[in-house]
C-alpha cells in the first residue's frame, strides 16, 4: 500500500518528536527539582540558607543567610555581649567597609546611639541596659552586588567574625 503524505511526514518526524518528549519529561523533573531547592533555601530564604558563626573569645554571635538574592532583603542578626570587662555601658559593633560597599543598610534595630567611621569600617555604638544582658542587633540589608562576597564584623579591637555569602543575580 502506498504511503500517504501524512504518513511520510510522520515517518520523517517521529524520531525527533520522541526525543522532544524525553527532553520534556527531563525538563519537568528539572523544574520540580528547582522548586524543591528553592523551598529548601538554595536560592535564599529557607532552612539551608541560614547559618551561625561565633567568636568564642569575644562572645559575639552572628546569624546570617549564606545564599542571598541581589535586591532581596535579608538580615544580619548579631548578638553582642552586654557585660564588658571595662564596665562600660556601651557596646560597639564594627562592620567592615568592604562589606558595607556591597550592601545597602535599610534599618538597624535597636537604633545605635552613634555611627562612626573608623579605620576600614563603621562602628555602631549600642547602649547596654541592665546587668549582663546581651545586646541583640538586627541589621536589615539589601545586597546590590552579585557573586561570592565576604564580610567581617565584631567588637572594636576585639575578635572579628569573617563570613561569606553568595549574592545571586
Amino acid at each position, binding site marked *: 500500500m502506498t504511503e*500517504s503524505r501524512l504518513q511520510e511526514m*510522520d515517518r520523517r518526524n517521529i524520531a*525527533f*518528536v*520522541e526525543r522532544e*518528549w524525553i527532553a*520534556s519529561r527531563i*525538563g519537568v523533573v528539572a523544574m520540580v527539582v528547582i522548586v524543591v531547592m528553592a523551598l529548601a533555601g538554595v536560592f535564599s530564604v529557607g532552612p539551608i540558607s541560614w547559618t551561625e558563626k561565633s567568636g568564642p573569645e569575644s562572645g559575639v554571635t552572628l546569624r546570617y543567610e549564606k545564599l542571598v538574592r541581589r535586591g532581596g532583603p535579608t538580615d544580619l542578626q548579631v548578638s553582642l555581649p552586654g557585660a564588658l570587662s571595662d564596665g562600660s555601658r556601651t557596646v560597639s559593633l564594627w562592620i567592615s567597609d568592604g562589606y558595607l560597599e556591597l550592601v545597602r543598610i535599610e534599618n538597624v534595630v535597636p537604633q545605635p546611639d552613634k555611627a562612626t567611621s573608623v579605620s576600614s569600617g563603621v562602628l555602631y555604638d549600642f547602649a547596654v541596659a541592665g546587668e549582663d544582658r546581651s545586646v541583640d542587633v538586627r541589621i536589615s540589608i539589601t545586597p546590590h552586588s552579585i557573586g561570592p562576597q565576604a564580610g567581617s564584623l565584631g567588637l572594636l579591637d576585639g575578635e572579628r567574625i569573617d563570613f561569606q555569602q553568595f549574592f545571586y543575580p
Partner: protein
Amino acid sequence: MDSVLRAGLIYFFLLLLFRLAGKRTFSELTPFDFVLLLVLGEATQQGLLGDDVSVTNALVVVTTLVTIDVVMAAVKQRSSFLNRLLEGKAVLLIDDGNILHDRMRKAKVDEYDVLEAARSSHGLEELADVKYAVLERSGGISVIPR
C-alpha cells in the same frame, strides 16, 4: 548593559520553560493557562526592569525583546535545525484509523481531546470517523475525516 542581559536571560529562560512544558500546555487557553499568563507578566516585570523604572530603561528592555524575537525568526528561517529545535514537528496520533495510544500518552493527549477537535472542525461524532489526527507544532490537533 544589564538591561539587555536581563531581557535576554528572561526571554530565553521563558522560551526554554515553555518548550519543555510541552505543546499542549499552551495550545488552548484554559482558565489555568490564563491565570498563569497573567501572573507570569507580573513575576518577570521586576526582573526585567530591576530598580530602574526610567523610560529609557523600559525602552531598552522592550527594544531588546523585540530584537531578539526578530533575530530568532530570521535564524529559524535560515536554519532548519534551529527551526526544528524551537518549533518542533507534527506527528500522527491516529494513523489510517489506528489510534496510537502510546504516542497520545507521551504527548499528554487523550481521546477526548482528539474527539473535541474532530467535532469542532468536521462535526464528527466518533473516532472511527477519523482517518488521520495530527498533533501540530502549535499543540493543536488537526483531523482528516474518512
